């Protein structure tokens, strides 16, 4: 297969997202469960690219309600919506997300967690998907003169239900956060998506983004905690948008 055709196929595979992760899901998950807390979380992503590329001003959003059911298990129910360039926003999928905390923060060399989600498409004829894999985090107390937290998500994805492909995808995400203060700390994030690891192709054909993000929280005592993240990611490959703005708002309330 020639390189241009291969590139177009990889781009189409990415756009069609055969392993079905919502693009608003571009955020790094931590291996920590907020036990006895209920949370509302919104993620948004607007991507930019060449006109007609499928990326230019594409939008995706997710809104989720989550509960820390056990000290080691948090579950979220999420609604995902997307808008292709020039089109209106429409509901895309409903997803059940589970985060399992396997170690207490600081107990071992690495903080470990496990993530598992089932996403069901609400669009006729489109398959659902299953996504799961480990979350690994390292706290480095004296990195570049300050405390830092480095987190890796390494998730496998697979279609579930009629109409799905047999492809297994790999979704990876990395965040290195320099902890300056609770209100605003800078981070660098990297995201990648290989829709079919059996035919991963060249890196340039895969989706990969990286960029700076600001992370912070405002604690309001018994009125809960507002957490926020916002950043601009730059496409690293020709199979990626040129850039993307992403944000996350999260409100947590203990019960």
């Amino acid at each position, binding site marked *: *297969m020639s390189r241009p055709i*291969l590139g177009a196929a990889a781009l189409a595979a990415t756009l069609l997202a055969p392993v079905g992760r919502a693009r608003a899901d571009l955020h790094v998950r931590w291996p920590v469960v*907020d*036990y*006895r*807390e209920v949370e509302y979380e919104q993620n948004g992503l607007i991507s930019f690219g060449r006109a007609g590329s499928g990326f230019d001003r594409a939008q995706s959003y997710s809104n989720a309600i989550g509960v*820390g059911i056990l*000290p080691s298990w948090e579950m979220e129910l999420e609604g995902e919506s997307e808008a292709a360039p020039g089109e209106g926003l429409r509901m895309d999928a409903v997803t059940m997300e589970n985060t399992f905390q*396997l*170690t*207490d*923060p*600081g*107990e*071992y*060399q*690495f*903080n*470990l967690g*496990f993530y598992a989600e089932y996403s069901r498409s609400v669009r006729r004829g489109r398959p659902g998907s299953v996504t*799961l*894999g*480990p979350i*690994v985090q390292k*706290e480095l*107390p*004296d990195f570049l003169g300050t*405390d830092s*937290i480095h987190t890796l998500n*390494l998730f*496998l994805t*697979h279609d579930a239900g009629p109409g799905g492909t047999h492809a*297994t995808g790999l979704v990876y995400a990395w965040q290195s956060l320099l*902890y300056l203060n*609770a209100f605003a700390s800078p981070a660098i994030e990297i995201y990648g998506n290989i829709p079919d*690891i*059996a*035919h*991963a*192709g060249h890196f340039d054909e895969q989706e990969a983004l990286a960029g700076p993000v600001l992370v912070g*929280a405002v*604690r309001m*005592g*018994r009125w809960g905690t507002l957490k926020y993240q916002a950043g601009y990611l730059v496409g690293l490959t020709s199979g990626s948008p040129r850039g993307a703005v992403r944000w996350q708002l999260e409100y947590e309330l*203990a019960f």
Partner: protein
Amino acid sequence: MHPTPLAHIRPWTSAALLTGAALLIGAAPASAARPRYALSLGPAGFAPTELHVPAGERVVLRVTNTGPAPVEFESSDLNRERVIPAGGAIAVYVGPLHPGTYAFFDDFHPRLRGTLIADRAAR
């Protein structure tokens, strides 16, 4: 295009292998024996309200909830938060810390506050 070696492994086997590898790498104890410090939290607040620990070392805080209702030990400075059921106890792993003060509080009753002081002469 040839399939990658991973193509011959079932996807959920791959996930199990990835997680197993992470557990093997990550489950090594951060430190064999860490100094332990006791802290209690009840309706009247933390006791002691000032806790001295050695700077530059990993330490364990054993926090006991002596009250009749759940509490949440929380510290933005230490990047830790854990709910403690009534009558229960938790271990909070912190450090190594720079010399200085680190505030902590009960997130369910934010007026109940304390300070962890990391200093060179605490041992």
